[in-house]
């Protein structure tokens, strides 16, 4: 059946099983944390959108750094410091290759997406945004891509504009067009929604902003783990990533920025490693990327991110994506069959994030009962309270799948949801 025929029959493309050759058991074996029981039941880890798990090769790499290379970077002439520096800057080159940045100096290491967005707020926003200017975000943003811009607007007398979404969780691009104007100084939107799963049409969003000469920041926290990212092809001005959502340790993350912006921006934090010369009268700043990396960074974590990238590049990522899409399709079909379940987030293009509410049952109680069955999900507002307000729910439950999850785990999850309905429905 062709896509057009499917649509004519009222079927979404997600309703057909997707053929994949993904060897999930082989991949699962790479993740030691998955081999454990919770309350005597096998752990079913479906909270990947909050933090994904770490493969053995990443653990080993971090451990090797601590055992054999640990020392401070960029300042010691001794052997260990050189090894640490080379591993740390090596990880930066891996990031560059992974997202196809032009130069590795365009990849700034930060602790995660939140710090990354704050870096751009301070470095770009406080320099280039003034009174009466406007910043555009979207209704589905995570608090980390709302609050920094609100703080900036308050400080500068600027205005925050919001692209609305529809009830499927898709951005209304006509409304976006109406918001873009000569006062717009930045568009900041997420690649994939953590609370709805929506994959946003980035190229469209970016090209429309660029026609008005407006730079675009992409919150890639959920994008980088699920999709191949090519920052030159997207032509985004900033792309921000969190390592702990892409199979690396917490404390690792990246701000990709076009060099032309990073060079013109203010530094973020002041301190060691980000300077060229310091006197009490004046300090001059280091070049990229050091200008934005004050103080000793999370060296082991960033080296771990480099190892996670090696791991991901060793996988067939297109096949991984197809497999995740099949898990999503299967889980959506099974969960929708439960009468009192309502899905939150039904966009046409979705990543493997499945948010839902059960009539008459609070998501926290869902989370507790599922945990009792060994199933880890997230319950709450997902740091996206405006999304909860849009759907008029106080909170949702969210299962988010990675390429190491299985259909058997989906079955356990769905049975546990049925149990919730029995106990509390």
């Amino acid at each position: 059946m062709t896509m057009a025929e499917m649509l004519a029959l009222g079927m979404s493309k997600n309703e057909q099983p997707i053929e994949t050759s993904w060897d999930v058991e082989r991949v699962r074996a790479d993740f030691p944390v998955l081999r454990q029981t919770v309350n005597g039941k096998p752990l079913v880890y479906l909270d990947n959108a909050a933090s994904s798990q770490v493969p053995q090769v990443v653990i080993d790499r971090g451990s090797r750094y601590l055992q054999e290379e640990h020392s401070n970077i960029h300042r010691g002439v001794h052997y260990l410091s050189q090894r640490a520096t080379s591993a740390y800057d090596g990880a930066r080159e891996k990031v560059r290759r992974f997202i196809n940045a032009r130069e590795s100096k365009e990849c700034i290491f930060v602790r995660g997406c939140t710090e990354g967005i704050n870096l751009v707020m301070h470095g770009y926003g406080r320099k280039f945004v003034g009174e009466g200017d406007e910043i555009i975000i979207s209704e589905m943003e995570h608090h980390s891509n709302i609050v920094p811009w609100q703080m900036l607007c308050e400080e500068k007398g600027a205005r925050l504009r919001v692209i609305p979404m529809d009830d499927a969780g898709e951005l209304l691009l006509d409304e976006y067009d109406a918001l873009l104007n000569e006062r717009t100084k930045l568009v900041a939107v997420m690649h994939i929604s953590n609370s709805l799963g929506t994959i946003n049409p980035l190229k469209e969003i970016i090209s429309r902003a660029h026609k008005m000469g407006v730079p675009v920041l992409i919150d890639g926290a959920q994008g980088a783990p699920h999709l191949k990212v090519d920052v030159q092809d997207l032509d985004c001005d900033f792309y921000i990533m969190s390592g702990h959502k892409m199979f690396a340790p917490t404390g690792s993350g990246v701000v990709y920025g076009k060099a032309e912006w990073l060079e013109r921006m203010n530094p973020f934090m002041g301190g060691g490693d980000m300077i060229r010369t310091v006197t009490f009268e004046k300090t001059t700043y280091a070049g990229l990327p050091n200008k934005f990396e004050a103080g000793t960074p999370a060296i082991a974590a960033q080296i771990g991110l480099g190892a996670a990238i090696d791991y991901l590049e060793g996988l067939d990522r297109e096949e991984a994506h197809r497999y995740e899409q099949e898990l999503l399709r299967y889980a959506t079909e099974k969960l929708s069959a439960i009468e009192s379940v309502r899905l939150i987030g039904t966009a046409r293009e979705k990543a493997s994030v499945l948010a839902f509410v059960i009539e008459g049952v609070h998501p926290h109680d869902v989370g507790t009962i599922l945990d009792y069955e060994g199933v880890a999900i997230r319950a709450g507002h997902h740091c996206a309270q405006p999304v909860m307000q849009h759907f008029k729910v106080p909170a949702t439950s969210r299962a988010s799948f990675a390429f190491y999850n299985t259909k058997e785990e989906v079955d356990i999850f769905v049975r546990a949801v049925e149990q919730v309905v029995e106990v509390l429905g």
Partner: protein
Amino acid sequence: MSALTELYNEQIKEHEKKPRNFGKLETANRVAEGRNPVCGDHFTVYLQYEDDVIKDIRFEGEGCAISKASASMMTRSVKGKNKADAEQLFSEFHQMVLGELDEETTPNQLGYLKVFAGVRNFPVRVKCASLSWHTMHAALEGEETTSTEDFGPDIASSQISA
């Protein structure tokens, strides 16, 4: 009985579906709002507190089954009590849900509040069970707001792992 059915026992489910003393209290002279910013639960507790006695108490707001049932039973159990007795009951309740008081062996005034004993098996739900109590306490102290962040970790010292 599993830990789960002990937690979600019939009394708790019944109070969640039909909370007592639910709604605004027009005669209130002390009002406090309690929030759990982590999950979004929020309750307002209204007190008519005169001559050191909680003459009347009502609550409104929304939250999970545990927090709502706890708010309902809290209002029933402190109504008519003086401040010292209400605070003593809160202390016993809090120790019980933390697993620091054995309600069967240690003398206490908990009575039907013992149905919350099962919370001790679910440390992350202690804040849910105690939110309305903290809010009642804030209202007695004349504070207008309180937040679970201000309560401290709300875990028993024995549960802090190495």
